[in-house]
């Protein structure tokens, strides 16, 4: 098999060229160590109180609907027909957020609240006296929770849906009860606003999503059994993280990004320095065989590089990812599609391996930074609330989402830190995989057009 021979050759060359091994392994490992050194002591997580801004425009359940709701409810329990059911689900939700504490098992008296709630007055916002979005940007609040006008109604509708599925009863379309339709509006979804690059925001989002799931289950149970909206989520299980742990996924991505430059330098040196490309082109090796060999090689390199970059911080630096290591590893391997594609593109552009290496170094650092590998990057929203996330609350498509590795970083954080599975982060994975495959295909075609045809 010719592609395997080619992969083998690249592999031998890599192992014998110590300097490239250094770039591939020692550099990211050194980076990991530096960040560990800087941030290891900075704890984050278990008892941190987050500041949550709340804008509540929820108009509650419409009167006639509320009445109707009780009637339907009475199907299950006629005994409570005259009690006020709710001031609106948003109101209930906010109340419960205020009461949620971290459970400190050693000292129950010492419970620490998860959130400090900062409620914004909608009339003040209208007068421009307060601006919650500015507070998000200045990070005065960690996240902003926005309940739109129709929040209660939409929630009710969601509950109905669930009921319908379970019991066959459906509130507004029940053939035996003709009631007012639930108003549908674009403006009906709960929004969580925050700085995607801000670690505290990411954590808040995860906690909120867990609470929201529990909340929905509670209203559902309530309606199903005719009880009150009364639920207990007093503790949310959170692992203890250091800032180092939250940065580790970024370092892994930085490591994998070094592959592109290395691959480009390798391919260009065959073309420009050793000029062995002359021999390859005159031989019976077909462009696709060569490209396939290179891709196999790159995949294997990636496998080992990522393996080592995973294991080293776990063994030496106390990196303790809570989530599935195997799934995190898979996400990184998929990212090889992107780095390989980029490598082919760069190799098609540059004509000396030095400039290829240097220019890709120049390119990779901003890519790593922009994908949020090391620190929070400013949010430039292109399309609001479009990317499905593990928390179930869609996030904005920001400028940096164009870069596939942004999604590697996000998916890795969700999986390794917040214990989501690959299926939970499918939105991020699609945004990683689809552009990466496109880039790889483009890169392969570009490379073979530039180096397997025309003058050499």
């Amino acid at each position, binding site marked *: 098999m010719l592609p395997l021979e080619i992969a083998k*050759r690249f592999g031998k060359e890599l192992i014998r060229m110590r300097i490239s091994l250094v770039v591939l392994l020692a550099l990211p490992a050194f980076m990991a160590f530096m960040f560990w050194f800087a941030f290891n002591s900075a704890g984050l997580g278990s008892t941190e109180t987050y500041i949550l801004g709340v804008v509540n425009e929820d108009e509650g359940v419409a009167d006639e609907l509320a009445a109707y709701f009780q009637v339907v409810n009475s199907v299950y329990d006629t005994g409570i027909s005259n009690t006020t059911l709710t001031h609106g689900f948003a109101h209930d939700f906010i109340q419960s957020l205020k009461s949620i504490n971290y459970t400190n098992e050693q000292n129950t008296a010492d419970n620490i609240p998860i959130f400090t709630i900062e409620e914004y007055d909608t009339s003040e916002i209208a007068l421009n006296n307060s601006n919650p979005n500015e507070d998000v940007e200045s990070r005065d609040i960690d996240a902003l929770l926005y309940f739109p006008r129709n929040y209660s109604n939409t929630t009710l509708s969601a509950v109905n849906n669930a009921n319908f599925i379970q019991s066959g009863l459906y509130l507004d379309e029940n053939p035996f009860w003709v009631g007012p339709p639930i108003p549908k509006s674009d403006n009906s979804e709960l929004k969580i606003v925050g700085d995607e690059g801000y670690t505290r925001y990411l954590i808040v989002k995860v906690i909120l999503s867990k609470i929201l799931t529990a909340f929905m289950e509670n209203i559902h149970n309530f309606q199903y059994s005719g009880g009150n909206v009364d639920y207990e989520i007093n503790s949310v299980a959170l692992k203890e993280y250091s800032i180092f742990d939250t940065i580790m996924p970024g370092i892994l991505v930085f490591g994998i990004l070094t592959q592109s430059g290395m691959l480009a330098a390798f391919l260009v040196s065959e073309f420009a320095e050793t000029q*062995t490309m002359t021999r390859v082109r005159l*031989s*019976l090796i077909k462009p696709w065989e060569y490209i396939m060999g290179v891709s196999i090689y790159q995949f294997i390199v990636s496998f080992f590089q990522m393996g080592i970059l995973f294991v080293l911080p776990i063994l030496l630096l106390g990196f303790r990812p809570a989530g599935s290591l195997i799934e995190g590893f898979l996400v990184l391997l998929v990212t090889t599609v992107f780095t390989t594609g980029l490598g082919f593109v760069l190799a098609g552009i540059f004509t000396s391996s030095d400039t290829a290496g240097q220019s890709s170094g120049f390119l990779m650092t901003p890519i790593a930074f922009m994908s949020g590998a090391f620190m929070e990057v400013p949010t430039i929203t292109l399309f609001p609330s479009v990317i499905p996330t593990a928390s179930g609350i869609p996030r904005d498509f920001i400028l940096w989402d164009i870069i596939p590795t942004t999604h590697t970083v996000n998916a890795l954080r969700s999986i390794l830190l917040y214990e989501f599975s690959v299926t939970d982060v499918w939105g991020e994975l699609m945004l990683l995989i689809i552009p990466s495959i496109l880039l790889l295909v483009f890169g392969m075609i570009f490379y073979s057009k530039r180096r397997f045809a025309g003058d050499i």
Partner: protein
Amino acid sequence: MRKLAIEPQYAIEVKGLRKTFGKGENKVEAVRGVSLQVRKGEIFGFLGPNGAGKTTSLRMMVGLLNPSAGNVIILGKDPKEKQNQDFIKEKIGIIPQEVSLYLELTVEENLWFIANAYRVPSADAKVTIDKLISDMGLEEKRKALAKNLSGGMKRRLNLIMGLVHNPELVLCDEPTPGLDPQSRVVVWEYIQDLPKQGKTVILTTHFMEEADRLSDRVAIIDNGEVLVLDSPKALKKSVGEGDLVEFMLENTEKDHLEQIASALREFNGGKAIQEVYISSNRVIMRSKDVISNLSRILNHIEDQGAEVENMAIRNTTLEDVFISLTGRALRN
């Protein structure tokens, strides 16, 4: 035995081959209309100074460069046609001017990679590789990394890299620079032997000895044009009969040299000396009867107020052919 009609007569036929690099001010006409035929089984030499267009011509012949104009037929087949390409690739071996090796691979690994690249069956490859390594005296370096070979060894490995797949047609671009005299002779003898294995060789060089010694026919190329094409013997004969005498004079001023040269042209009514010219601060003359005239000629030079520092008598070389064609020396 009668040859089959379909058997092509030529290894390579080239017609009106041109190559222009760059545009506008940077435009270089590297090859300007080269037409020639290389016969099967011959060693065909391309002799010309640096930048004459030898490498460019060779690269167009094997398809590494697209000609700006003209066409190439290899073993009777047109390389532009897709179905001929693998056939042609199998038949051609190139020995590039720039040493092209995988520096991080050993001598053996380099050769094996090429064997694989040409899908040579392992059993055949093993025999060929062993033979090539011993032919080039690289046995001791079999397991050495290519980057740790000496310059001359790299050059020898570069040579056999082009022969692993046993090509019918060997294109050899400057095989010997950087080789010590013994290695050079080894390589020369090796190349001279290739036609005996049924191979055709195209050789480029700017060493006239090399072209003279190895080639059955030589094309002298300058500024992208073939000036003459013939056997070395015929080419040398074309510049005139007799031996050459080179005088190195103490006085090296140009005007004075010219004066001496014209005095020599007048010598004995111009009968004894066929030709006089100046090259590299030396006065060179051709004479059919050097020995009997030599002392008188020396006197004649001294009469012009010049002191002969050194003197050499030699045969005509291809360098002289080149000078007579272009008025310039090959190496300058």
